[in-house]
């Protein structure tokens, strides 16, 4: 009886993960294909690194990647500050004026269709330019503001859920020993929620790095991000260079995510060991 059920579940897992990973693997494999037809394997000349070479010499893609990187880094730092404040406030302060509104404003961007957010952001920037003359035109600044607004919502959720699980007695103890609230935050709270802040930063970076829709609305001429360039290329069909780009992205993401989760697991074990030692 048990066997049959687990057989069904195992089959579902196998098919599910095949569904998730076959498209990704196909891009990796075909990035080494010599043929310009991308999905027709040219056995005589493959595997080859020629598309890697041509991607790394593609000025348009490199320029776009540089813009994306700048926007993503600034966005991640800003979103982490705003999101940590909001997540901390929502988790720690049971009642304050505007709690309901803040909660709603940090939940809505998670599900809001991007076309709506993008359009509304752009119309705000246009209106602001008419009223106060800022921002003059659109580009990296307006894009970064747009990204921060939706990615801070994700950081808020991550920080808030981490705050909900940690032992409030630690903060109380520090307060009882005479630490001021700000000091408690930086010495106790911040180190404990640091994993959440780090994941929040990475999440905000990725959201910005991948974003097409909000960037397209809030960007101006001359500021094309990597997804905008990729989208215009992909609309015309498959391109071997995009497979290379995908493979490089997958490689970086895999290394960073596995590295960070290993590091966090180790840090978690060390913290647990320290807590056990302190308890003895």
């Amino acid at each position, binding site marked *: 009886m048990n066997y049959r059920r687990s057989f069904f579940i195992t089959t579902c897992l196998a098919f599910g993960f095949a569904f998730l990973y076959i498209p990704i693997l196909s891009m990796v494999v075909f990035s080494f294909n010599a043929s310009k037809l991308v999905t027709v394997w040219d056995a005589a000349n493959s595997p080859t690194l020629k598309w890697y070479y041509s991607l790394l010499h593609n000025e348009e893609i490199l320029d776009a990647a540089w813009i994306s990187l700048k926007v993503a880094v600034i966005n991640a730092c800003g979103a982490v500050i705003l999101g940590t404040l909001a997540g901390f406030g929502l988790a720690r302060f049971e009642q304050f004026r505007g709690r309901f509104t803040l909660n709603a404003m940090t939940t809505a961007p998670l599900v809001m269709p991007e076309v709506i957010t993008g359009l509304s952001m752009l119309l705000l920037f246009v209106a602001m330019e008419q009223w106060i003359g800022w921002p003059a035109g659109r580009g990296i600044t307006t894009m970064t503001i747009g990204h921060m607004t939706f990615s801070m919502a994700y950081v808020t959720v991550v920080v808030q859920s981490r705050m909900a699980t940690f032992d*409030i007695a630690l903060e109380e103890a520090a307060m009882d020993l005479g630490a001021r609230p700000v000091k408690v935050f930086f010495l106790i709270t911040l180190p404990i929620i640091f994993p959440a802040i780090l994941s929040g930063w990475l999440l905000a970076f990725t959201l910005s790095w991948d974003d097409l829709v909000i960037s397209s609305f809030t960007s101006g001429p001359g500021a094309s991000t990597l997804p905008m360039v990729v989208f215009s290329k992909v609309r015309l069909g498959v391109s071997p260079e995009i497979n290379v780009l995908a493979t490089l992205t997958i490689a970086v993401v895999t290394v960073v995510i596995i590295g960070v989760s290993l590091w966090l697991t180790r840090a978690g074990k060390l913290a647990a060991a320290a807590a056990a030692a302190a308890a003895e």
Partner: protein
Amino acid sequence: MRILPPLSKVGISGRGLVVTLPYLWLLLFFVVPFVIVLKISFSDVDLAIPPYKPLLEWVGQNSLAIKVNFNNYAFLFTDPLYVHAFLNSVKVAFISTVLCLLIGYPIAYGIARATPTTRNLLLLLVVLPFWTSLLLRVYAWIGLLKANGVINNVLLALGVIHEPLNMLYTPFAMYVGIVYSYLPFLILPLYANLEKMDWQLLEAAEDLGCRPWQAFYKITLPLSRNGILAGSMLVFIPAVGEFVIPALLGGPNALMIGRVLWDEFFSNRAWPVASAVAILLLILLVPFMMWYQSVQARESASAR
């Protein structure tokens, strides 16, 4: 259970400082824009920069006239294209959500019942695609589905089919793309819910003579209701307004409202019409967003 937060000793000013910055930021950059969208949805299209007429206009010397018109909305309701796009988007999002549930539930269940080591590995495998670019993952399906793509080549080589199937730029491709992209959004909240399940309940039910499927239907399914709802909402709401996937996989006939909004804005430069589309879409989705928020509130209350 009420926990008195120690930092409440900071008093109003300290609390105020913490939440004021994100509060004002979201108010200015998230809420105010909707007011502007609403305003522009009542304006006339104009051949100017920006391409709409002001609502308030000075007529004569001292009188201010407000020109509100419902032309854009009337236009959306009379042209069958827009009505069709709205209905089609809801249909596509709904079917995609059901498909995600059918595929995602067994996966989330399997992960929740795995040993802790396997569980972490499987979770990592679910999350990993989510971190790689959505655009690139949707792009991968072009290579798989097109006429001389991977799937057709494999099926032809195996002799299953004798001429390539026409899959790319069809509704089928769009469903595949949406289900593929949104699956992790359904699996993760569902897993978080199932992880808290007391599996002894199932054993008890089976001891009392329940068949495994009955036990699942009577115990696991009702107890995971909040996880199902939260996950479904995370798929359904954004999928209604999805732009990238229909644009890349759906072909010219894939009429989705997100795409209509995009085209009105970028191709036709009809900002007021695009704004009216956004407002109607918002009116359609806000009840679902509120539902989502109440489900989330219930979930975090039960976690305490």
